[in-house]
């Protein structure tokens, strides 16, 4: 048992270690002190209850983003469109949040969350449905939909839903009503608890239900799934919709629990961070939570790191890219650690742009 846990955790753990080490080299190359910078990063993300709250807040949309990618991975699909799905989820959740007043919390907040989730699901579902019906590769389609979503939400926030209060010139919506705001208990935002419950739910669906069996079967061997009577097209569309829903929920939580409104271009990196997190978690929904916490911690501490030691906050983007590289190419770590090869960990997606 402990051996196998070690085997599962070793690669992601070492990937993080290597990422942080190379990051230290970059800090040195810029004339900084890695110890000082990383200390500031940690204090900024864990130092006091405010810092912890920040970390949990940052981690919340990341959990959703990671789940979105991980869920699609299970069906052998690559949802690179988390960013677009997040944006539509965020803007429509905010729309419900500021557009309606006088509703009780118990109706308003769930309604806003659901609208955000549905918007994300529709956005992700487009890619899945196109893949199932025309064979258009979901990677191309979701990337394109990211740009479409960027423009669409930008327009919404700059025109019909613009915050016209005072001297505002930024493309953003008005503040949402209190009744649609996700509350915070001490240092724990409720959105984070929601994210953790959703990741447990994802795991249960995938591992314990017949739908999850279908999703995994399609992911591992689409032909065998079809031969076994599974509706492969429907499973691909629905999986992408679920994946989009997860990202959309992340956007909704961002609007309703963190920013309090929608602002154009919010959290633009999320789609990519979701990929890093999903791979770091080896596409396991339960692993997504610690992976997202790690990235959330870095993001929460980046500002303090810049303030204290003058290291550009973009360093954490580089570290994330390095971590992604090491988890994507585990053979490097295995070679360094003289570990045995384990085939089950490689994520393989169906590539090719057309029908196959």
């Amino acid at each position: 048992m402990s051996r196998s846990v070690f085997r599962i955790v070793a690669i992601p753990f070492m990937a993080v270690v290597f990422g942080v080490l190379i990051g230290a080299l970059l800090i040195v190359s810029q004339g900084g002190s890695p110890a000082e910078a990383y200390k500031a990063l940690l204090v900024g993300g864990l130092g006091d209850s405010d810092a912890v709250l920040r970390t949990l807040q940052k981690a919340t949309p990341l959990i959703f983003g990671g789940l979105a990618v991980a869920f699609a991975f299970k069906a052998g699909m690559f949802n690179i469109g988390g960013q677009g799905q997040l944006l539509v989820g965020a803007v429509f959740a905010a729309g419900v949040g500021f557009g309606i007043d006088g509703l009780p919390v118990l109706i308003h907040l769930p309604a806003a969350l659901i609208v955000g989730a549905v918007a994300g699901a529709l956005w992700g579902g487009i890619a899945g449905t196109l893949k199932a019906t025309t064979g258009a590769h979901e990677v191309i389609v979701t990337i394109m939909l990211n740009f479409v979503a960027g423009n669409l939400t930008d327009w919404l926030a700059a025109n019909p839903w613009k915050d016209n209060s005072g001297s505002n010139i930024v493309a953003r919506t008005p503040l949402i009503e209190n009744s649609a705001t996700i509350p915070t208990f001490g240092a724990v935002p409720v959105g984070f608890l929601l994210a953790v419950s959703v990741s447990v739910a994802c795991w249960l669906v995938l591992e314990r239900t017949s739908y999850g069996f279908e999703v995994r079967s399609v992911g591992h061997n689409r032909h065998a799934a079809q031969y076994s009577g599974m509706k492969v097209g429907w499973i691909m569309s629905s999986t992408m919709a679920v994946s989009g829903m997860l990202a959309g929920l992340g956007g909704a939580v961002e609007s309703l629990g963190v920013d309090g409104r929608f602002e154009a271009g919010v959290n633009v990196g999320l789609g990519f961070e979701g990929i890093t997190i999903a791979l770091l978690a080896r596409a396991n929904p339960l692993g997504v939570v610690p992976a997202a916490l790690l990235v959330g911690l870095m993001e929460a501490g980046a500002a303090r790191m810049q303030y204290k030691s003058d290291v550009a906050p973009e360093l954490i983007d580089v570290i994330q890219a390095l971590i992604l590289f090491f988890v994507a190419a585990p053979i490097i770590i295995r070679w360094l650690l003289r570990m045995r090869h384990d085939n089950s960990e490689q994520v393989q997606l169906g590539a090719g742009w057309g029908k196959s």
Partner: protein
Amino acid sequence: MRPRQKQLLYAGLTAILILIWIFYSADDLQTTAVLAGTVRAATLLALGAMCGMIGERSGVVNIGIEGQFLLSAFAAFTITSMTGSLFMGTLAGVGMGLIMGWLLAAMAVGLKVDQIIAGTVLNISALGLTSFFYDRSRSLGIGKYTNIDLGPLADLPLVGTVFFSRPPLTYLTMALLVVVHIALFRSVWGMRTRAIGEHPGAADTVGIDVLKLRYFNVTIAGGLAGFGGSYLALEAVGTFSRAMSGGRGFLALAVMIFGRRTPFGAYAAALFFGFTTALQNQFQLNNTFDIPPQFVGMLPFVVTIVVVALSGLFGSMRDPAALGQSYEKG
């Protein structure tokens, strides 16, 4: 190409020429501006598409063109600003492209990482690295590449401005289209490249080293994307800004698919996509129509989705059979 398709192609071309002629007679300045903008936007897409097609013809998907553009543009910009030489900067961009191509090959071919994930690593790394090292105070110093008139050809109406009065990297790109076409379809290298993308096992049994050739091709293709990065920073824009590739590395893939993985086909597709961009710019400049810029900005991306969906639906494209699969001997 089947005869029917050929007829359609010629009919389409004729229609386009007639349209251009009508517009040109109506408003020569605007028409010239839009077409010149078309060629400008098409150049980057064509370079990216060539990068993608060399990879895909040999069985390797390259979704990291966006990152290759970005990091190469950064390298080209930085080196030019340090040395004051556009030429050195261009070389630096190509060099960075080669390095990134090699990295992609190392992951996707050597380590057998899933090709799409490997490309994503490039994209994320490029975004992170360029943001981290970006220095706002830096500028190009000297100006960007300027137009070179090709003698009397440049004085021709319309085509003179559109094709024969361009900066050097655009001319080079057009030359590269011819070179890549000949290399892919007439040379020994091209024949072997197509073979390893369709049936690597067959190539292996006649003694072609599949992995080595894929390594080589993906690396060289990276050089083309790197050239695109140089073009972007030193000729098209003349500076560097964060995430300046703006999705054109991804559009290049759509252009490649639309152009059936042939250089000339890709260039035609690139001109079409470039046209939508140029039109959008012109609209914004003149306030011709009252369309919000965000919707005009969506256009190329929506077009791409439609193109990819339609070409899947009508089966007009066929991927190389071994696309996306790592090759295991035996």
